[in-house]
C-alpha cells in the first residue's frame, strides 16, 4: 500500500524560512527600539545618493547605522562610511535581493541597543526584493522620474507593499517626457496609503520634508 500512487497534503508557506527569520529580526529591532527600514529601487534610482544626502540632515542626537546590499562590490558602503556611521556591506554573491538570513548574519556586528534607526539598502531591483521580508518596520522605494511614468503600473507589487515612495531626480523634470500626474495617480491606485515625496538628491529639493517624515516615524516607533 505504501508504494501506491497517492497525494500528500502539505499546505505550507514556501516563504516560511525567510518569514520566520524576518520575524526574529523584527523582534530584535523592536527590543532595541530601533526602527529598521528597507530601501528598494532600480539600479541608479538614487538609493545610495539618498542616504548620502539624508544622513547629514538627521538630528545629530539620532543614532543611525546602514546595511548596504550589493551583488559584488563595496562601492556603496565606501560612499556611506565617510559619513561616520556604522555601515556593513552584504555581498549577495549574485543574488538579486537581500533576504532575512543575510541581514540576521550581520546584525550582531552592530550595537543595536544604541541605535534609533537602521537603514537597509537593498540590491537595485524593482522585482524580487518585494517578496522578501527582512524584518523591517516598513519599505521605502526610490524611483527616479527618468525611469518613466509607466514603472509603477509595470512593477505594482513593490509599490503595493511600500509605505513611502521618493520620486528622485526632479531637477530633470523639464528634460524628459515624464507625466508626473500619471505617475502619481498610478502609484496611488496601487497603494492609496503610500506617502509620495518629490525629491532631487542633486539640488536637495524635498529632502528636508522626507527627513522630517522619517524622524517622525522613528519617534512614533519609540513612543
Amino acid at each position, binding site marked *: 500500500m*505504501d*508504494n*501506491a*500512487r*497517492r*497525494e*500528500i*497534503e*502539505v*499546505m*505550507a*508557506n*514556501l*516563504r*516560511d*524560512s525567510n518569514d520566520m527569520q524576518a520575524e526574529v529580526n523584527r523582534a530584535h529591532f523592536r527590543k532595541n527600539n530601533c526602527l529598521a527600514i528597507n530601501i528598494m529601487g532600480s539600479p541608479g534610482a538614487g538609493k545610495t545618493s539618498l542616504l548620502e544626502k539624508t544622513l547629514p540632515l538627521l538630528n545629530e542626537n539620532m543614532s543611525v547605522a546602514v546595511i548596504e546590499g550589493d551583488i559584488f562590490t563595496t562601492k556603496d558602503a565606501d560612499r556611506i562610511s565617510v559619513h561616520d556611521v556604522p555601515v556593513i556591506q552584504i555581498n549577495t554573491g549574485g543574488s538579486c535581493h537581500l533576504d532575512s538570513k543575510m541581514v540576521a548574519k550581520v546584525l550582531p556586528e552592530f550595537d543595536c541597543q544604541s541605535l534609533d534607526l537602521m537603514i537597509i539598502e537593498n540590491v537595485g531591483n524593482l*522585482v*524580487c526584493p*518585494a*517578496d522578501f521580508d527582512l524584518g523591517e518596520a516598513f519599505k521605502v522605494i526610490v524611483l527616479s522620474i527618468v525611469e518613466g511614468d509607466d514603472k509603477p*503600473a509595470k512593477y*505594482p*507589487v513593490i509599490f*503595493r507593499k511600500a509605505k513611502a515612495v521618493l520620486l528622485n531626480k526632479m531637477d530633470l523634470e523639464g528634460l524628459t517626457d515624464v507625466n508626473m500626474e500619471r505617475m502619481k495617480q498610478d502609484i*496611488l*491606485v*496601487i*497603494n*492609496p496609503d503610500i506617502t509620495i515625496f518629490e525629491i532631487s538628491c542633486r539640488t536637495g529639493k524635498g529632502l528636508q520634508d522626507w527627513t522630517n517624515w522619517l524622524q517622525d516615524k522613528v519617534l512614533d516607533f519609540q513612543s
Partner: protein
Amino acid sequence: MIDHTLSQHDVKRVLKVKIKVGELTNAEPDALAMAFEAYSKDTLCEGAELIVERVPLLGCCRDCHYEFNVKLMYFLCPNCKSTNIEVVQGEELLLESLEVE
C-alpha cells in the same frame, strides 16, 4: 520543505508537486519551473511535474465590504469607488501537495 515532507513518508518517487502562487507575488511560473528542475536533479523529485496554480487577486472593500477581482493591480472598489481595499487572496506562495508513489 519538500525534503522535510518526504522524510516523514515512505516514498519511492514524486510524480507531481503542486504549488499555489498568488498574483500579488513576483514568482514567475517559468522561473519556478526552471528552479524546480535544477533543485530536483538527483532527488526523489527528479522528473516530477511542477503544477503551478495561479491564485487570482481578490480584494475586499473596507467601506462597503464588496468583494471583487482586482485586475491590473487597480485597487478601486467597482461598487462604491473607494480605494480602501484589503487584499483577501493573492499573496500566497504555498506548497499545496505532493503526488507520490
